[in-house]
């Protein structure tokens, strides 16, 4: 009985490992191709890894495309957008968890109801608004629509409600106001949730595609996700350098994913946000 159970466990592990390799196969494949020469890529049968790894594709990507600039743009957009969301949503969450005011329920639902509006269907009219503001092809234009998040507001409110009100009462006795309590006591106490939100939001904005595609025109303003799909090479559609580019832009996401897995899983599963 025991050996049977043991054999079963080993089998589950083997099956899982094979399934895992199948799931990550596309990523390994792009890594392999990024080190292949054009002739090796077109050989038959197709190979997963090259016989002789070459760095030429990476040299091509860095020398003849602005991929560094793209990554800088994406970093800026994701960082500022995430910071903006943290500020707006934590302020609103504070009001909903600690302050009493007229219309509290209404404003809470006013913000939450936007979770029901699919963002992409608003792109025409949001594009017009950004155009009227003269922000097409600017960082502000990309970031403006990202500065608020009902999901994060909700997550933070849920978290704030679990913190005993005694902390606030004690702080007020010591002469703290709402702003000082929020900045110096509440936010530091909420670091685990804030870091989860930061990572989930950063990854989401780093990976954003449709909106940056729409509001940027010039090559120098493109984010990495948009830029990577528009790489131009003198020889036309060449997969080697494209896969090198894909690998380069995947590295930051995968590093963040591996290091902050716990926070990310919490951020995603408790907020229920996708993509």
């Amino acid at each position, binding site marked *: 009985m025991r050996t049977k159970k043991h054999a079963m466990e080993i089998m589950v592990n083997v099956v899982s*490992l094979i399934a895992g*390799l199948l799931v990550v196969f596309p990523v390994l494949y792009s890594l392999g191709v990024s080190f292949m020469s054009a002739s090796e890529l077109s050989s038959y049968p197709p190979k997963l890894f090259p016989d002789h790894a070459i760095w030429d594709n990476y040299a091509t990507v860095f020398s003849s495309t602005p991929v560094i600039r793209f990554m800088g743009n994406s970093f800026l957009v994701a960082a500022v957008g995430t910071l903006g969301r943290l500020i707006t949503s934590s302020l609103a969450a504070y009001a909903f968890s600690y302050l009493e*005011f007229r219309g509290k329920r209404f404003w809470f639902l006013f*913000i939450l109801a936007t979770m029901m509006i699919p963002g992409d269907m608003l792109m*025409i009219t949001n594009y*017009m*608004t950004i155009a009227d503001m003269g922000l097409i092809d600017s960082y502000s234009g990309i970031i403006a629509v990202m500065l608020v998040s009902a999901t994060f507001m909700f997550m933070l409110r849920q978290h704030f409600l679990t913190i005993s009100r005694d902390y606030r009462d004690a702080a007020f006795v010591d002469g703290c106001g709402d702003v000082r309590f929020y900045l110096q006591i509440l936010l530091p106490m909420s670091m685990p949730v804030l870091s989860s939100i930061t990572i989930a939001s950063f990854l989401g904005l780093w990976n954003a*595609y449709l909106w940056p595609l729409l509001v940027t025109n010039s090559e120098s303003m493109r984010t990495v996700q948009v830029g990577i799909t528009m790489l131009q090479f003198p020889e036309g559609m060449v997969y080697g350098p*494209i896969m090198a580019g894909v690998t380069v832009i*995947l590295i930051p996401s995968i590093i963040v994913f591996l290091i902050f897995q716990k926070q990310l899983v919490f951020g995603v599963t408790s907020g229920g946000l996708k993509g």
Partner: protein
Amino acid sequence: MERPLNVKRLVKPYLFLLPSVALIFLFNYYPLFKTFFLGFMLVDVVGNPVEFIGLDNFIAVMQDERFWTAMLNTFKFALITIPATLLISLLLSLLAEKKRRGSSIYQIMFALPMAVSMSSAALIFQLLMNPTLGMFNYLTGLQVNWFGDEKYALTGIAIVAVWMGIGFSFLFLLAALRNVPGDLLESAELDGGGYIQKLWHIKLPLISPTLFFLFTTDLIGSLMVFGPVAVITKGGPMGSTETLIYRMFIVAFENSKYGYGSAIAAVIFVIVMIFTFITFAFEKKGVHYH
């Protein structure tokens, strides 16, 4: 001294709310209403409403064969993507459910697609499923020109979308499965219940809220699919992968028909709302909460 303090107290909550409420009004409610408004207007090529034309835009949408094709494609896409994503991620989560030595390794592998952006995934699969260079046909023994054949292109796009979606669904289902109380499973075991009985009578009913949540988000995500279509096929070949949002994007931004595009957006919104209400009505009957 008393009055200014009171005013401050009255106003303060609204100051905390102001940034969120202002941005949400500007980039959510205002564009939502404007979308419906523009749907009833003749709009010039730079986006200014010219005159009220009633239902003309909506009638034009309903009479446009390409709109119906896009709708059909979108539904077909949803019909392939949703069951496939749920089934695969359920199987993966059942594999990883029990914590074993080494299980954290394949748990990371199963979740990894979540970290891969849509455009990277689309570019990788474009090569992977390329009929002459790619490995997909070689490994599966198929002879399919995935993105070049109108019979298969939509399925090809769906395969990419399923891969992109499994990491997220897997994490949710894994969390749900690990929350199933152990004593319930033990008492079922004492009653002689095997793996399948435990899965069918205890685990699945208990994780049904999560399955339902994933079904709803997948449904909305499928109805809004745009990315892989824009990167890989641009709606082709022969319009076989043109989806609702892609159609709206082309009409508004390539043909500069903003009124017509807004009418499509309004129709998409109504469709999404109808499906959301249907799923929630269904939820009351079929899903077990504890």
